[in-house]
């Protein structure tokens, strides 16, 4: 059985959930081999999780340069593994960095690139959700290796024990003339809430929230549900909430079990980022708001009445 490489997404010594989803998808296609690129000592902390989700091999590519350059260290490691291991596919998270790593890898190895897959079958055919969920397509690569970016949250992670054999891989020296140097880094405030694209529940506010202070209503509801907070572009542009929380066409794509939209009209560009959520609940005072066309449960009403009551009721049931 041929190998299927999975680029491990990790932060602060932990495997991010999307990696486990990718390992699960990789098992359908072949033998999953996790590829860890990071500073020295990274892989050791991640090995147990990777093995518990079926990694038969763990390629350990550690070097100080991994954190000093943008994108190219990962591309270099994967490209050399593609030529030595001849994998059927390379799976990469469809994150900002992941998409660029996958793109460069496809160019360098002469492989086809399948972008933002929401599912993947044993033949390497990927399912795609296009134009904000309005259209669907399936596609495959005609090349020896397929490079696929997979949307976080679209494959359910299933545990399976793997051999987890660690194999050292080299991080080729970076050429400062051709690579960009990272000279400073201000980590995103981790906070206590789950990461937007990984959260099982997302609670989002729109222009209807009315101000940055009022977003506290959204945050309280989110915290009662253990949710991440999202925002529409109108809310971001009005300065109610920071840009990295924007959901939609030009923001994040989320696919949680539950998406709660408050004071969001449901413009097509917003729907583009949340339409594949499993269950959608909307609160809007306008009964004609398009968000109700895709909501499983729509509440016509004032969010400032409904959301606090909802928060209290959830808290009550917890205790």
């Amino acid at each position, binding site marked *: 059985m041929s190998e299927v490489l999975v680029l491990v997404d990790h932060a602060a010594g932990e495997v991010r959930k999307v990696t486990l989803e990718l390992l699960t998808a990789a098992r359908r296609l072949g033998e999953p081999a996790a590829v860890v690129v990071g500073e020295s000592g990274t892989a050791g902390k991640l090995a147990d999780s990777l093995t518990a989700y079926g990694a038969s091999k763990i390629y350990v590519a550690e070097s100080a340069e991994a954190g000093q350059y*943008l994108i190219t260290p990962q591309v270099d490691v994967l490209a050399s593994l593609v030529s030595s291991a001849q994998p059927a596919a390379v799976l990469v998270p469809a994150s*900002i*960095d992941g*998409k*660029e790593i996958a*793109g*460069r890898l*496809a*160019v360098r190895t002469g*492989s*086809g*690139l399948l*972008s933002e897959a929401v599912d993947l079958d044993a033949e390497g*055919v990927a399912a795609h*959700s*296009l*134009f*904000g*969920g*309005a*259209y*669907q*397509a*399936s*596609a*495959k*690569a*005609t*090349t020896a290796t397929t490079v696929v970016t997979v949307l976080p949250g679209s494959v359910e992670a299933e545990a399976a024990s793997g051999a987890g054999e660690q194999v050292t891989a080299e991080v080729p020296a970076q050429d400062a*003339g*051709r690579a*960009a*140097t990272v*000279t*400073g*880094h*201000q980590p*995103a405030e981790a906070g206590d809430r789950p990461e937007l*694209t990984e959260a099982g*529940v997302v609670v989002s506010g729109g222009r209807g929230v009315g101000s940055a202070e009022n977003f506290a209503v959204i945050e309280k509801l989110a915290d009662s549900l253990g949710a991440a907070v999202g925002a529409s572009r109108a809310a971001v542009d009005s300065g109610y909430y920071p*840009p*990295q929380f924007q959901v939609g066409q*030009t923001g994040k794509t989320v696919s949680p079990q*539950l998406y709660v939209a408050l004071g969001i009209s449901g413009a*097509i560009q917003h729907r583009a980022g949340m339409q594949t959520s499993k269950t*959608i*609940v909307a609160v809007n005072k306008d*009964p004609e708001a398009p968000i*109700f*066309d*895709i909501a499983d*449960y*729509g*509440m016509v009403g004032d969010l400032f009445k409904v959301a*606090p*009551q*909802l928060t209290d*009721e*959830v808290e009550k*049931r917890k205790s």
Partner: protein
Amino acid sequence: MNIVVLVKQVPDTWSERKLSDADHTLDRASADAVLDEINERAVEEALLAKEAQGGEVTVVCMGPERANEAIRKALSMGADSAVHVSDEALHGSDAVQTARTLAAAIGTLESVDLVIAGNESTDGRAGAVPAMVAELLGWPQLTYARKLDTDGQSVSIERESDAGVATVEANLPALVSVTEKINEPRYPSFKGIMAAKKKPVSTLSVADVGLSADEVGLGSAPTQVVSSAPAPPKEAGVKVTDEGEGGVQIVEFLSGQKLV
């Protein structure tokens, strides 16, 4: 400083977008076509750099004849000239082939210092073409910039990603992609629109950029779309009006779905 801006014409996100039944490529006839909003910001950033450093802004676009309208819009904002790669053979090109074509088109221009692109298009959403072009040119990539500074020798950006904000630097020539937080693009003035009509646009074929027709297009694409269809309509859900118990009712619904 010679700056190239990569611009793409896309179906307007407000119109109904679909793929053609015949070959699963973008059905360009069914939707209004516009210059992708993110590319207006890329043009704006190029114009700001030119205003500070001097030089020329050249727009490079790959697309069918109609993409001319998008090119004119960029020129009316203030770009100096354009290269339009337009060829029947390009129909159905995928991301890898698009990047090859764009890199080859950039290669026909003399002494380019900086290429500016959008971070992600609103139709294909690969979010990868800028990085792929950098790979092909052998240049550093500085992507997802929410702020860009250049002194004509080097370039520095603030890159906003899931991990936070990084400062990234490189010497020119380099490629930068911008996010929608970078600037507010200017509106073309009447004067700009009139001037754009006289600005030079060179239309190049695949052969003109040094590629052969069998390297591009649907037939030789490294990826193949095997099926496509409109998504089945979502089943209509429940819609109720809040009579004072709305919050409680939502929790009851969630608990029925085992979501709380």
